[in-house]
């Protein structure tokens, strides 16, 4: 490893605003292969941690970003005199959670899931660049579909969407409607004499079976 390259990367990271991808960083030294830069950046991150520097190199939103060490926040906070990074409102957070896990999603689907009008909240999230319009759905009226942005990942310190916390305990209920339709189709294919699953036996409440039942 050349110490020269490492120093250049440090200088670039220092000069940068916001997360920079390895490709963006490589503009400074185009003759170096990307995987080599990637390796040096990883080394840098480990080095800052090992040597307990006051800053950290973070992998966030698909890029690299220098930040202060969160362990030192109490001191930094005093220095900032109340100027804090902003928080999302509760409504914004709950709406954003649905968008994050269900993207791409239309406003209609979002409101169906949340049970409330989401126009104002969507506007706020768009304004704060947490979400963006991804295009239009093929559904009736071709409604706009929304997805999260790089700024969303940065706000929550996520390297990528794969790093979203898993909601595993609910995985079996992930998309109840789709599952129900699937089960119903499967049942009709296998047992054509049964007209509809909804005519099946009543099941005790709490049973995770997604079969359609009538009260």
């Amino acid at each position, binding site marked *: 490893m050349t110490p020269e390259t490492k120093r250049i990367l440090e200088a670039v990271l220092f000069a940068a605003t916001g997360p920079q991808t390895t490709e963006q960083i490589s503009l400074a030294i185009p003759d170096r292969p990307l995987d080599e830069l990637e390796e040096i950046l990883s080394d840098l991150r480990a080095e800052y941690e090992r040597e307990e520097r006051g800053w950290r190199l973070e992998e966030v939103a698909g890029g690299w970003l220098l930040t202060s060490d969160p362990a030192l926040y109490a001191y930094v906070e005093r220095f900032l005199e109340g100027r804090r990074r902003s928080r999302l409102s509760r409504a914004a957070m709950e709406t954003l959670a649905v968008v994050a896990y269900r993207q791409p999603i239309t406003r209609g689907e979002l409101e169906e899931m949340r049970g409330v009008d989401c126009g104002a909240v969507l506007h706020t999230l768009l304004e704060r660049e947490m979400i963006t319009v991804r295009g239009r759905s093929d559904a009736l009226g071709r409604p706009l579909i929304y997805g999260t942005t790089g700024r969303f990942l940065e706000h929550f310190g996520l390297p990528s969407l794969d790093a979203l916390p898993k909601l595993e305990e609910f995985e079996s209920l992930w998309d109840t409607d789709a599952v129900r339709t699937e089960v119903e189709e499967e049942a009709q294919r296998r047992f054509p004499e049964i007209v509809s699953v909804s005519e099946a036996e009543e099941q005790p409440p709490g049973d995770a079976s997604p079969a359609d039942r009538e*009260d």
Partner: protein
Amino acid sequence: MQQPDWSTEVDGTQFRGHPIALEVFEGPLDLLLHLVQKDRIEIWEISISRITNQYLEYLRTLEALNVEIAGEFLVMAATLMRIKSRQLLPRPSIAGLEEDAPVMTREELIDRLLQFRRYKEAAARLRKLEEERRRRIPRGWTPELPKGHRYPLREANLVDLIHHLREVLDRETEEPPRHEVHVEEIRLEDRMKRILEKVEGRETPIGFRDLLERPWWRLEWIVTFLAILELMREGRVVVLQEEPFGDLWLQPGPSDPGSNGGKPALGEAAPAPHESASHPPVPDADRVEETLLGRGEADGS
């Protein structure tokens, strides 16, 4: 927990209800979830009857407090009562109704609540990430100024004062911008007269543009066009056009007293007596009229 006395006089009715923090619930599902959790039961164990009563009680409280209830809360109230009534009625009697009016079942309500809770939990986890993340200050971060913050005022010195005085004086001595508007009139009758003068006694049709005396004046274009329409109506000129949106060409009409009487009436085939290399071939008058009336388009306008 000892509840304080919440009874209040509202609209002459004594309100003795459960204390409710207003504006807390993010919609009806949020309220339902709260009611379920307050009862410490699992979502799939909910009793529709019980939760409907609790839900309606909440709405009544809001009403008593004169709080406007959002529409979605009322829709949910109706949905709950419908599920409840379906449970009470014998099933066959409503089987026919269901086909064209699909309603939410208890299971669907439970599904929606479970889903709603899942995303609420997701939001809580994201909130935790946000809190952690706020403790890292990134390079290049520009802090937002806290509420009520004022930019510090700098003391002005003599040079600043002179500089500003100069600016003010410069502004005062500038001639204020002046723009006078002259209203010029252009009369339809005058235009019609001028057009006839120009059209008459010509061997070849005259182009629309050649009729304009002040082509930079938009009003003249409009009035000229109106004048032509009027003259066409009176049959005093015939307007020809080679193609849609093409130039308009005028020649004296059949009823024009100044014309030689040999001109065809509108609707007859256009004459071809003015063949010359300098003007366009004369198209069929029928087509011209159709184009003009059908399209309603003037040349270049």
